């Protein structure tokens, strides 16, 4: 027999969490599970989960602080993403999106047989992160609202709206907000695709929030024997530092500023 499925339960209503616990208990002989954590919203789920991994996340859609859609996006961006099974009492719009992208969901009140079926399916197939992302995008367009940063085993959530720029250092990427820097565990290329509408690349190692660019200035000139190399940098709202713009990206940055 295989190892029990590691399950995360996230719902803001205590009786709903209790219901899922009861049902998991009832179907344990058919689908063995172990509950790693339960949480009242997305933020608490990520905090409680920390660095531990789960196989399946049972996620309510409508929750305070961080809803199920955003949580699913967060989970999908993990190194080893769990299978996400949404639970909803009544949300025709979300249900339609799930059906379209073949994402599994449970309707409340949840039935034991249906839960067992969803768990068996989750155990068989690898986590469909692309499908979850597609459904999430259909329900709440615009990508993730938060980025995860771990610090000494603690999960910090950085609102994307507050990020002024991302910078790739040697091995990691940092996100700069008005207050400080956060270490992220994702690649600049991935961030660039997900947040293309919000950030633009100004350098091989740097993405800047379009709204944050205040202006540009000539940085320095290298006078070689034959050519004059002009370097530009952008000034940003909210932070004192200036960021160099690569020659390759300069035309785009200039076009944005001159619009």
């Amino acid at each position: 027999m295989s190892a029990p499925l590691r399950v995360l339960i996230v719902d803001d209503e205590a009786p709903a969490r209790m219901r899922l616990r009861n049902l998991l208990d009832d179907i344990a002989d058919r689908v063995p599970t172990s509950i790693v954590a339960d949480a009242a919203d997305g933020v608490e789920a990520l905090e409680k989960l920390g660095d531990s991994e789960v196989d399946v996340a049972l996620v309510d859609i409508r929750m305070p602080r961080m809803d199920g859609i955003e949580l699913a996006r967060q989970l999908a961006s993990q190194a080893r993403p769990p299978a996400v099974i949404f639970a909803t009492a009544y949300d025709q719009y979300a249900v339609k999106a799930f059906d379209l992208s073949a994402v599994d969901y449970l309707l409340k009140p949840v039935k034991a047989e249906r839960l067992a079926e969803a768990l068996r399916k989750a155990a068989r197939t690898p986590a469909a992160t692309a499908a979850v992302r597609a459904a999430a995008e259909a329900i709440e367009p615009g990508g993730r609202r938060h980025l995860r940063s771990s610090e000494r085993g603690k999960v910090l959530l950085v609102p994307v709206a507050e990020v002024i720029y991302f910078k790739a250092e040697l091995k990691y990427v940092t996100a700069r907000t008005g207050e400080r820097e956060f270490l992220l565990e994702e690649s600049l290329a991935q961030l660039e695709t997900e947040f293309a509408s919000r950030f633009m690349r100004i350098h091989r190692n740097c993405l800047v929030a379009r709204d944050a660019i205040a202006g540009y200035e000539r940085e320095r000139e290298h006078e070689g024997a034959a050519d004059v190399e002009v370097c530009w940098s952008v000034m940003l709202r909210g932070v004192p530092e200036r960021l160099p713009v690569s020659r390759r990206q300069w035309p785009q940055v200039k076009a944005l500023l001159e619009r």
Partner: protein
Amino acid sequence: MGPSFRAPRLPDFCNLGIWLRVLLAVNGMALAAALVRSRGLAHLPAEFAELAGLVEPVCLGSLLVLCAGQRWLGRLPPSGAAAAVVAVTMLVSALFASLLTPLTSGESQSWWYAGIWSALTAIVLLMWFDLAARAHSPAVTEARLMALTARIRPHFLFNSLNAVLGVIRADPRRAEQALEELAELFRVLMQDNRELVPLSAEISLARQYLDLERLRLGERLQVRWDIESCPPDALVPPLMLQPLLENAVYHGIEPLAGPGEIDVLLAGRQNRILIEIANPCGGSGTPHAGNRMALGNIRERLLLFFDLEATLATDLAGDRYRVRIELPYRHGDVS
């Protein structure tokens, strides 16, 4: 929205019932005229026969023309169509008058005299049909009321059932109580909600509803009632408080991670009843589509019950969203 003058809605000129009513009315008027004109009851039949002989061909002829031209009338603007109807009757009667004058020896039956008479008759009849149509609309009002009240968020029903299932093993008594409340709530939802109900009944229903929500939300849901100064016998539209509270819970409490408070104020002031419900406004200041729909529903019902005597207003004061309703104080016998 429209001008204060409203052109009458035209009846169906090809409908036999309409023909019957028009003929009855016209003959009735002829009879009345005959009564006025006749010198005694003995002369009445002859007087009436003469008048009826004059008006009936005009009447039937006009109806025939109007029935034939009904499609064309329908394409005109309402006031134009009414004017056309009057013009048709005038023309038909003028035609008949000029045809019949040689036959009857009457010298006063000039064509324009007949035209004015029939035009007046046509106007009176059009107004009468319009009034009758409007008098019938209480049936429409009732149907509208039925449709407006029978709504509750499915979200609430399924979440409540799920919550009952969640506590049924750990706390069977609480589950029983919740199911009783749910049954009670749905009994009221499904009953005939076309009559005003005492505020006290609305309050107890609201309390049951909130108790159900407390099962799901626990300490997150806090409610402060301020109803001391309110006469409990005041009559209000049925199922008005509960949807307002449902909105407050859905938009005010559920988006909050911590506890949130709903304020319910019911007060009587100089023959007016004031109902005020305030809830925390979770971040987004714009009212939700679902909220607008529920408020539109209540506003429409207030209009149907109290016409313009009731008002509904919403405002956003700081981080609290408030719905304020004022009604005239009507009271019935409450046992």
